């Protein structure tokens, strides 16, 4: 009797989840196909509105971000195109079409950033084409491997030195990658793209002295925001203020 009540309870929860998720997902699919039709008719603004509608339903998709990037390329809005391609790359960094269009957009930049720097951990453990989820899974597997090795060593009565050698190698690998991963996640929220070419000022004021020019498509660090202005940092360390509507987080 008790089991039956528990079973019915689980069934109800599953039905609620199904009822809650399914219509939004179907609606997103419908919007996606509508947007593609509008895109093919050449109405890129209309397509963008529909793609935006999918994002507003609370879903993300590399395909939607990619198509939005294409719309902006067609509209000649290079900064926003690069922004959406970068967002798509975070979800699906190995997609060939996406990489091709991202490179195409970058090649059209009038002033590509030439001073991109990676820190020590990024350079040592830079894993291109791997998503955060995949890195997380790899790290979990490594940790599982280390703990399993400990267990096997105990059962098979390995000599302490032999066990320690393997565990030490895996632990070093694990610790460095955890460090690298945390560093990557830490900088993720602060990455932004310059949407259109603008003068970067010393102070958050229209009349302030210009420090340097930020070109559309540049990838910069988003440091802080103050009354309609954003403090950005170039990869080579120069910082300055840009109007908020000219820069957006990836």
């Amino acid at each position, binding site marked *: 009797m008790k089991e039956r009540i528990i079973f019915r309870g689980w069934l109800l929860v599953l039905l609620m989840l199904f009822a809650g998720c399914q219509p939004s*997902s179907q609606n*997103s*699919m419908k919007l*996606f*196909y509508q947007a*593609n039709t509008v*895109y093919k*008719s*050449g*109405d890129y*603004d*209309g397509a963008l509105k529909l793609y935006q509608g999918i*994002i507003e339903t*609370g*879903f*993300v*998709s*590399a*395909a*939607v971000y*990619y*198509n939005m990037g*294409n719309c902006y*390329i067609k509209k000649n809005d290079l900064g926003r195109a690069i922004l959406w391609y970068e967002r798509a790359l975070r*979800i*699906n960094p190995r997609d060939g*079409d996406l990489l*091709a*269009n991202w490179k*195409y*957009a970058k*090649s059209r930049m009038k002033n590509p950033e030439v001073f991109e720097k990676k820190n020590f951990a990024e350079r040592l453990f830079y894993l291109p084409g791997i998503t*955060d*989820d995949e890195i*997380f*899974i790899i790290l*979990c597997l490594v940790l*599982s491997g280390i*703990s*399993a090795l400990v*267990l096997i060593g*105990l*059962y098979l009565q390995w000599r302490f030195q032999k066990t320690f050698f393997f565990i030490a190698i895996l632990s070093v690998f694990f610790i460095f990658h955890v460090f690298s991963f945390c560093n990557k996640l830490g900088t993720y929220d602060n990455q932004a793209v310059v949407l259109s070419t603008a003068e970067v000022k010393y102070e958050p004021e229209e009349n302030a002295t210009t420090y340097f020019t930020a070109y559309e498509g540049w990838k910069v660090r988003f440091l802080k925001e103050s009354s309609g202005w954003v403090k950005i940092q170039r990869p080579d360390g120069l910082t300055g203020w840009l109007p908020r509507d000219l820069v957006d987080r990836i």
Partner: protein
Amino acid sequence: MRKIRSILVSAIFVLAACAATFAEDISFKAEVDSNQVTLGNSTHLILTVNGAKKVDQIPLPSIEGMDSRYLGPQTQVSIVNGNYSSTKSFIYVLFSNKAGKFTVPAIAVTIDGKEYKSDPIEIMVEDAPAPAPPSEAKTSGAPSSVSLQDKIMLTLEAPKSEIYMHEQIPINIKLYFGGVNISDVQFPSFDTTGLTKTDFGEPEQTQQVLNGMGFNVVHFKTLISSTRAGELILGPAQLQANILYKNQNQGGGAQNIFGTDIFDNFLTSYERRPFTVNSQQIKINVLPLPDEGKPGSFSGAVGKYDFDVTATPVEVKVGDPITLRMKVTGDGDLKTITMPVFTDASFKTYDPQIKDEGNAKISEQVVIPTSTDVKEVPAVSFSYFDTESKQYKTITKGPFAVTVTAPNPGEEFKAVGFDSANPSVTAKEEVGKDIVFIKEHLDDLKPKGYPIYKTWEFWLAVSIYIILWSVFFSIYLIRKKLKTDTRFARKFKAPRQVRQGLDTAKAYMLDNNTKEFYSILVKTLTEYIGNQFHVPSGGLSYDTVYPLLKNKGVDEEALESIKSIFESADMVRFASLRPDEKNMKNDFDRLKTVIERLEKSL
């Protein structure tokens, strides 16, 4: 002496202040710089409170035909002949939007619990003289416009109300303004959903007379084409600019004295106010392109076009290039048309180079005759939909006669992809560069901000792994302790040995083997107690187990049962008594109960 003087000065100030408190008399009035204002100009409204110590800003009621903006307060304090007076003024600027007679209503203000009211003020707003050519102004009749909206207008004009899909039509947006000064005019904007639009060109400015009023007209021109069939609602177009309101009072003094506007120009100040003007909407019916009579070579050109083709040179050797130059001119959207591409088996062809030159689209394609049998370059056709005649038209140019001669020895034609046994690449292939087409399937949709560590599958896998690891590790620890800790090992094994002993005893009981039954019964009991207390079980008797169990707090009832089991066993072993089946069953149950009790106590 100096001290006396300072005391006297202080006394005078104190007396003056005292006098001032008695001299204050509160009054309130409203006044304007000028009661006569020209439409498009502004005047100041000053609300003055005299004698009050503290007055907050006085709000202004809405005034018909005028907009207002608060400029700020002004305070004056004066002591004349010992009379202290303080005046606080609140200054508003009034912008005239309409010609006519308007009234600033009586304004009430409460100071120290008493209400004061100003007198109503009448303001005459006169229509501004329009800069119209006198001759035209007279013929067009007297102006009837009296509002600012009639002096600034935006119109949206399209040459036709019915067009075909992809047909390009000019759109003219006109900004009319007369009798007002405007600045910072922005380009107009309108919703471009379902259509393509070119950028606005440099605006043109003309003058026009409407209803007897002269207007400056700014023309913004663009081209649009619809990408969808059906009803297209164009507009409203929206334009933003600033109106410059001339302050009516400024420079007025100079004009009165000198009777001239020269100083007026120097002294006049302007107030900028942003405004937005909207045009009307236009309904355009967009027809789909008919399927009937659509030629095979039609590739989307809509409008009126001309097509020309030249082939040069006309005398070549086999392997020499001939350039086919195709030129399309017309009033349609040249950017969207696809140029014809020449293909023929007798020629090696290359991808054309396409460029835009003004209102022409030019394609240059290199073709190479592959044999001396070639006598002509075949005709090339270009099809378009003519929106005037409402039918498809095809313009064909050619064929172009050419003379192809054999190459000199050693200059044989070696085109890539032909029947040469040893092909050599003579020209580097130029490949196009553009974006890859959009994704047509949505197969990676997932909730936003949902990393893997937030999924239940991940935590299920982690939990299973942790449980398994803990189980195996616990087994390892138990096995290790069983090997090294005898006391633990005996205690650990005790329940299992009891179960085995009871099973064997039961079997003997069923066989009615009394001797073996009691032997196993006692052995099970003594082994269990020996394991629990880590003492040798061989020599245990009731006398030896009693103090052990008593110390552990085992109750008397259990001790009595143990004693009974030992006595029954001794009777069988030493007195050769044969208890009946019932007694054996009782002793068996007694042992089971005792061990259950000992499990709880020990």
